[in-house]
């Protein structure tokens, strides 16, 4: 089991992470946060690429920076923007990573299975340089699965992908989550909304929320409102309230407002979404 204890990280005078405490069990964890919230720094500390200023990351009770710790052999990691090697084929790249991971024995069979799983078997002998963004992400995902790791960490796996590829990747993530800990760091709420068992919200280096999506949504029940307005009123409401969404139809604007109290007499309470939760905590933390 993976555990983050009292973890802080400073770069000079800037505190990037502040006393972070998270415990990861089996399941998919969506690490949500805006750009610059400290997600990549947190990921880098978890995978032992970066030293924390204080606190520790423990795997089965042993610090991941300890030589005795077996974490690295149980880890599958996909960083934010891996460039891959354009002259390697998909098969060669997976062979390379499997050698790096020290996988012995029937890894050829596993590579074939993984290429089938991520729907790249037909392109197995093509150079990676010819792959689309979605194909690259799928190769990236396949390499994280080499050696059947217990913990999979993905940093912004859907960045730059079109909607179809994002859905495809999301479905793959759901499939691999069985009996594993999967941590997906992203700033795009829909990426984890339907697949995550737990959502961790990170703002300015602080953990603002850590619970299942249902719990988080229920926590802000009665705080999301719908207001209909004309353009003049809409402009005034945008300045006055925290608006999460605007939908216009025939000069009538439907504003989705996040507020602890009923903002206007005409406001109607609506069922919150995870995006509303994210914005709610975002507004609370003073994010713009």
């Amino acid at each position, binding site marked *: 089991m993976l555990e983050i204890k009292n973890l802080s990280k400073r770069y000079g005078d800037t505190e990037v992470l502040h006393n972070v405490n998270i415990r990861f069990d089996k399941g998919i964890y969506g690490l949500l946060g805006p750009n610059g919230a400290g997600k990549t720094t947190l990921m880098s500390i978890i995978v032992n690429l970066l030293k924390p200023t204080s606190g520790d990351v423990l795997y089965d009770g042993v610090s991941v920076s300890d030589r005795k710790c077996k974490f690295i052999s149980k880890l599958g990691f996909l960083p934010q923007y891996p460039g891959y090697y354009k002259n390697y084929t998909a098969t060669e790249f997976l062979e390379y990573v499997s050698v790096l*991971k020290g996988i012995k024995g029937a890894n050829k069979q596993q590579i074939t299975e993984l290429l089938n799983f991520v729907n790249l078997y037909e392109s197995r002998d093509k150079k990676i340089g010819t792959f689309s963004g979605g194909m690259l992400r799928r190769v990236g995902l396949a390499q994280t699965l080499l050696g059947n790791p217990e913990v999979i960490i993905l940093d912004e796996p859907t960045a730059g992908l079109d909607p179809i590829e994002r859905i495809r990747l999301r479905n793959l993530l759901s499939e691999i989550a069985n009996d594993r800990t999967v941590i997906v760091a992203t700033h795009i709420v829909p990426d984890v909304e339907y697949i995550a068992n737990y959502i961790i919200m990170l703002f300015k280096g602080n953990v603002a929320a850590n619970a299942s999506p249902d719990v988080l949504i229920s926590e802000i029940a009665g705080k999301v409102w719908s207001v209909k307005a004309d353009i003049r009123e809409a402009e005034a409401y945008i300045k006055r309230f925290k608006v999460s969404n605007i939908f216009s139809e025939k000069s009538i604007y439907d504003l989705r407002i996040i507020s602890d109290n009923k903002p206007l007499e005409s406001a109607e309470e609506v069922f919150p979404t995870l995006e509303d939760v994210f914005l709610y905590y975002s507004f609370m933390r003073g994010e713009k």
Partner: protein
Amino acid sequence: MKRLVVFELKKNHNIRFIKVFIIALVFVNLFNIYKNYDLLLKPTEYIINSEVCTIDKVKYRMDTDYSGAITAEKVNALKTHYNRCQSITDGKTDIQEKLYFPLAYTDMVQTEILLNEMERLYKYDAQSIEKLLQNNEMLKAEAQGAENEYNYRIAALIEKVYSNRSLSNFYRVNEYEPLLTYQFSSLCVLLLSCFAAAYLFSGEKENGMNSLIRATEGGNVKIFIAKATGLFIFCVETCAFFFISDFVLFGLCRKPTGLFEPIYSLKAFEYAPLNTSILLFYLLLCFIKLLGVFAVANISMFFSAAFRKSYISLLCSLLSIGGFMYSGLYTDGMFSVLKHVNPISLITSVNLLQRFYVENIFGHPVFSVIVTMIGVLSFGVVLCIIAYKVSIWRRPANA
């Protein structure tokens, strides 16, 4: 590990600008040798039996006719030929026999050069070495008298190295000298190895693969060893490619013979402290140069581990090479010890092998080339360790 090394090698070979650079340098090197050393490009030309010949080409025929063991018969034949050419030149006789050159005077001059060379070879032990050993005996006696143990050891070493040397064959061995002293291909290899090494770690950081690699079991020690081994193999391949092509090209351009003759049969190497054949000497020289190239590549690898951009690593490496070349020229006096850790000293090691150069190591004379090899190797190992430490230094992935 073997597979990891193969993958690392494949990465090195796939760097586009290295491929382009290799091809460009091969052509530049080829052109350089052809332009500066090809015998066929010498200006004076003759037409002999309807064939256009240069002076060196005709000389090659002449040398080949008299190649092999130096015998009284050959020397007498040459002397007779010389006298006849002289008579023809003086107008005392008509041309009665076949000459090498259209002009009897040229034939006479070239015969004289050939005779002098044969004489030098034949009298090598009796003149050059005998004289050296006699002087050495005096030094030895002096050192013994003054109880100067170090000088005595030097004298003993000279005696051991130079005794029993003799030459009895004539071949075109002097034509090997341009090959042995040629340095341009070493510079090409040096640049190529630097380019490959500068990309080793910086390249991984540039394309965002560093984090992925480092988050694997083999991402620290294993990958470093694989990269260093891959770099060494790349240096070996590049050295082999350039040095073999030099050997072939010089062979074609200069037409040397007597590859298995002792290295001291070359005029410029008559006091070389080695008793090996020319071939072995060349192989040894290539090996020593390879060590120097690898040590320089290690400097580049260190910069690659330290910087995130390969062009910065490369720039620092090139500046370091410049620094080493400059310091190689000016490290004298108390700084002379620096010469023995300077990788450039190994790349230009032919100077150290041409004459008897020794260093005082705890009262024992040790050949300078050996001291430099040990010094540079130690320097390379230290650099390797530092590069490893720097490469695994935990830094933020996006910093």
